[in-house]
């Protein structure tokens, strides 16, 4: 456990030094502040369009940070040959990988906190309310989803030869799931065999990342999710995160450095 923590701390420190987060945060803040300064027909309480834009930018930014950060971990260590001194210490490959995962996951939690605090303050300044339960669920589910994405990206970094290939494939896969995941069953019903069966298998097998996207509920002030539903989604995320992590550990143990 101590080894995992130490590797995670190194990843965390490295992520603080990198400028990705700062650039994306400032960009999000500037765009939102400019959009927020617009008044439509003398009504200062119109806020939902701003919440939508802000949440969209937060989702894009955090996905960019999570995927690029996780995808670089192992290949960069390998290129700079720092992986040899790292593994020469009494630390197993599994521990190194888990350390990398937790480091990325905690770093993204910090980024998410900053983004959502900005979002909350901005929304509150216009609508004068603070729906804490909704915001907590949105952040929590977003974080769990990013855990799955980070694990997927780590697995990709071991399976694909180049970082760019891994990043591209991860982005395509995540976008596909978020946009089409919910409708894949409908699409399957409209095509013939054997594509239908293939799509149905894909529907059940893929991680449904759209379960963690509660933006519509937050934007339109719907009541918060039932906590049991939230817990089930969390368990679902843990299962897929664990699946990708175990696969990555197995692959990392078998691959030559």
């Amino acid at each position, binding site marked *: 456990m101590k080894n995992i923590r130490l590797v995670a701390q190194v990843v965390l420190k490295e992520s603080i030094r990198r400028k990705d987060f700062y650039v994306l945060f400032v960009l999000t803040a500037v765009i939102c502040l400019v959009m927020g300064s617009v008044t439509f*027909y003398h009504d200062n*309480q119109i806020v939902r*369009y701003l919440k939508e834009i802000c949440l969209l930018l937060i989702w894009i930014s955090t996905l960019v940070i999570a995927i690029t950060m996780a995808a670089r971990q192992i290949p960069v260590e390998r290129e700079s040959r720092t992986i040899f001194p790292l593994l020469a210490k009494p630390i197993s490959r599994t521990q190194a990988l888990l350390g990398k995962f937790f480091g990325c996951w905690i770093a993204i939690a910090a980024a998410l906190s900053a983004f959502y605090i900005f979002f909350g303050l901005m929304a509150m300044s216009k609508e004068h309310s603070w729906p804490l339960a909704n915001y907590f669920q949105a952040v929590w589910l977003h974080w769990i989803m990013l855990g799955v994405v980070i694990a997927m990206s780590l697995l990709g970094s071991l399976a694909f030869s180049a970082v760019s290939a891994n990043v591209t494939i991860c982005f395509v896969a995540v976008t596909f799931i978020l946009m089409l995941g919910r409708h894949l069953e409908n699409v399957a019903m409209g095509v013939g065999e054997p594509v239908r069966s293939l799509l149905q298998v894909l529907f059940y097998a893929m991680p449904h990342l759209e379960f963690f996207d509660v933006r519509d509920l937050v934007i339109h002030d719907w*009541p918060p*999710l039932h906590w049991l539903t939230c817990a089930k989604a969390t368990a679902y995320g843990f299962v897929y995160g664990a699946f990708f992590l175990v696969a990555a550990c197995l692959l990392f143990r078998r691959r030559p450095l």
Partner: protein
Amino acid sequence: MTANIERPQRNHGAHVAELCLPLLLVGGFCLATNLSVWFRNWPGNRISSNFMRIALGDASRLFANQFFVKADAYFHSGFYPSIYDNQQSFKTPHIAEDSGAMKGRNTGDETRFLAPPRNWLEAFGREFYPTVHTHLSEGGANGEERADTVGEILPWLKLSMELDPNHVQTYIVTAYWLRRMGNIDDSEQVLREGLKANPGNPKLLFDLGRLFFHGRHDSIRARNVWEAGLRDINSLPLPERTNDQNSFSREQILAALANLEAAAGNTNRVLSLLQQLKDVSATPDAVQKWIDDYKSGKRE
């Protein structure tokens, strides 16, 4: 002791160039004062054009339509069919149907465009997005929204108007909902912007007349605007005059004018307008009944 610094000799060419500089500056200034007037009046200048419209070209109409639909999705607090769902009950945006800007083509149950879930995964997924039919004007998602929350649709309508200034329905819908929010001044402003982009449009004139009559209680301006609308329709060539849209607008204006004149007590004018309405109406029997009722005093 000061150092004796040798200054470089300035040649004649450099001297002339130095003199030319202020001359060129004055020349540029004079030309700018002359050309700026021409440039501002030149229809090809891009100063007054919308940046997004220039960037998107003809695709701006596509985006404008998308934002119009987005406003309707906001009206339903996010409960809206995607391209993969059954869209029969959302063919005409409800914000447009309510405002009378579009004839409704919706069929089926608007509360049930989502088919029953086929499996547990689909059923579980529905917990994470809106699945209940609500309207912002009737309490919204939590049933307790203020009536003016319907203003949340306005940013998308504004964007839609800027991207496609010739889509008349967007102005009518925006003006209608602004009126519902009690914002008469902005509603009038929107309709005037619409008329600026679409001069003499009978639908916009009809709506502006409605605003004067019901919103400002100014029957004189309402009459003038409606009569201008009628004149505009009558001045169109026959095929255009009798198309669905203009026939519908003419019916609307005639009926509105008849009501206005009835309120003013101009009996002869009312009967004349109703007779014209009967000639163009799709339901002449109903208009005849209106005439009979008016003559017998059952209807004022």
